[in-house]
């Protein structure tokens, strides 16, 4: 009997262990430069939407990242009384032209079009989490899995949002 129990236990443990080890890993890419960027400060609190910095997000495949110039649009003047602000401005002025460059987390055989999903009414926060949630200085803390795509495409998630069922055949997102 006790061996039976042991076997069952081993079975379960093995399953969950292997699942944990082999599951799709979150790919985290550090941004260059030591500027801790806080999405929360730049989001709704000052009435900006993501597309102000991620200029492609509303209508193109890639969301893109702001260039130094884009940052400087606002940071030309000291914006707050916060003592850290000079440090930030000087860091910015020293930063290279494209401070934010990161590796795409999307596998090469997967197609994802940001604009398409924006047009379909999907909010950035639906996949990337709200500006408060996004970790400082991190990218891709989210665990994007094919399952999460499929769930939404086949209408399992976001019932309330009235999304249309989307294609789930391989050719829709893979090449």
């Amino acid at each position, binding site marked *: 009997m006790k061996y039976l129990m042991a076997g069952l236990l081993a079975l379960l443990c093995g399953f969950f262990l292997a699942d944990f080890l082999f599951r799709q890993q979150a790919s985290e890419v550090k941004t260059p430069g030591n500027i801790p960027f806080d999405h929360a400060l730049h989001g709704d609190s000052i009435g900006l939407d993501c597309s102000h910095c991620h200029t492609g997000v509303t209508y193109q495949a890639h969301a893109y990242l702001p260039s130094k110039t884009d940052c400087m649009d606002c940071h030309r003047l000291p914006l707050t009384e916060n003592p850290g602000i000079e440090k930030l401005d000087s860091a910015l002025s020293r930063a290279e032209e494209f401070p934010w460059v990161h590796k795409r987390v999307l596998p090469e055989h997967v*197609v994802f*079009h940001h604009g398409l999903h924006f*047009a379909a009414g999907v909010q950035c926060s639906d996949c990337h989490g709200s500006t408060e949630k996004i970790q400082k200085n991190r990218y891709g803390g989210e665990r994007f899995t094919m399952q999460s795509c499929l769930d939404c495409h086949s209408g399992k998630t976001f019932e309330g949002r009235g999304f249309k069922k989307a294609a789930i055949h391989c050719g829709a997102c893979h090449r």
Partner: protein
Amino acid sequence: MQVLWGCRRLPDLSGAKVPEIAEFEREVRLALSRAKGAFDLVQVPMPGALDVHGASSLNRFGMAIDLDACDGCGKCILACMQENNIPLSSKGERDAGRFMHWIEMHGGAPAMCFHCGNAPCEKVCPTGAASHTPDGLSTMMYKRCTGSRFCGANCPVGARKFNYVDSVKEGLARKFNPEVPLRSKGVMEKCSLCLQRLQDHKHTQMATRPGVEWRGSGLKTACSEACPKNAIIFGNWLDQDSPLVQEAKHRNLYVPREIANLDPSVVYMRGRR
């Protein structure tokens, strides 16, 4: 883990030698000199919508190859290789009579995958890597392929190509087109009807002009672009004003006998009516 899931590794291009374009041209000439026998053609009506549950009623993409115009110059083959990053085939492969070309000359006429509406290859693929899109493409999901080659054995016209060698490591592959991933060793591949172009075109339109129905108008495959005689016409069989339908309307359409009752999307045109 990388070993176990090696199937999902990216081809490592670092250090691998990359062939010159001249080599691709040379191989195309070689392939032309070894053209296969002509198909035994039978006449068919114009393809309609797929009769599969869940098929699109708006789009069914396909091509018509004008046998009267085509002079078998083989420019389409080269264009296809450059669009889809098709690797050169190794010496051993050539000796075995195998090229990776998605387009091959059969009796002086180009032949690629005919994208049968009722494709035998898809039925026997164990993993579902070979599957159909609602708009009539027989697609190949490389990362899902386990290389059982059942599809290849079951393709009546032998349109499927198997990656017998690791073309990247052998320095046979060149990434002309960043949009198309390189295929790893042990994977089946074939004409995708330039799936990437269709996807990009569709996504851009749906993002910038939501609400407008996408019929893929104005789109062309690499081969049809490259053809100097304009003998390969790409279009949407269900769109009355697509160049394909416009042309095919008053021509006789033919397909190889082997696949005549498999509802192919790619056909040959000959003679006017």
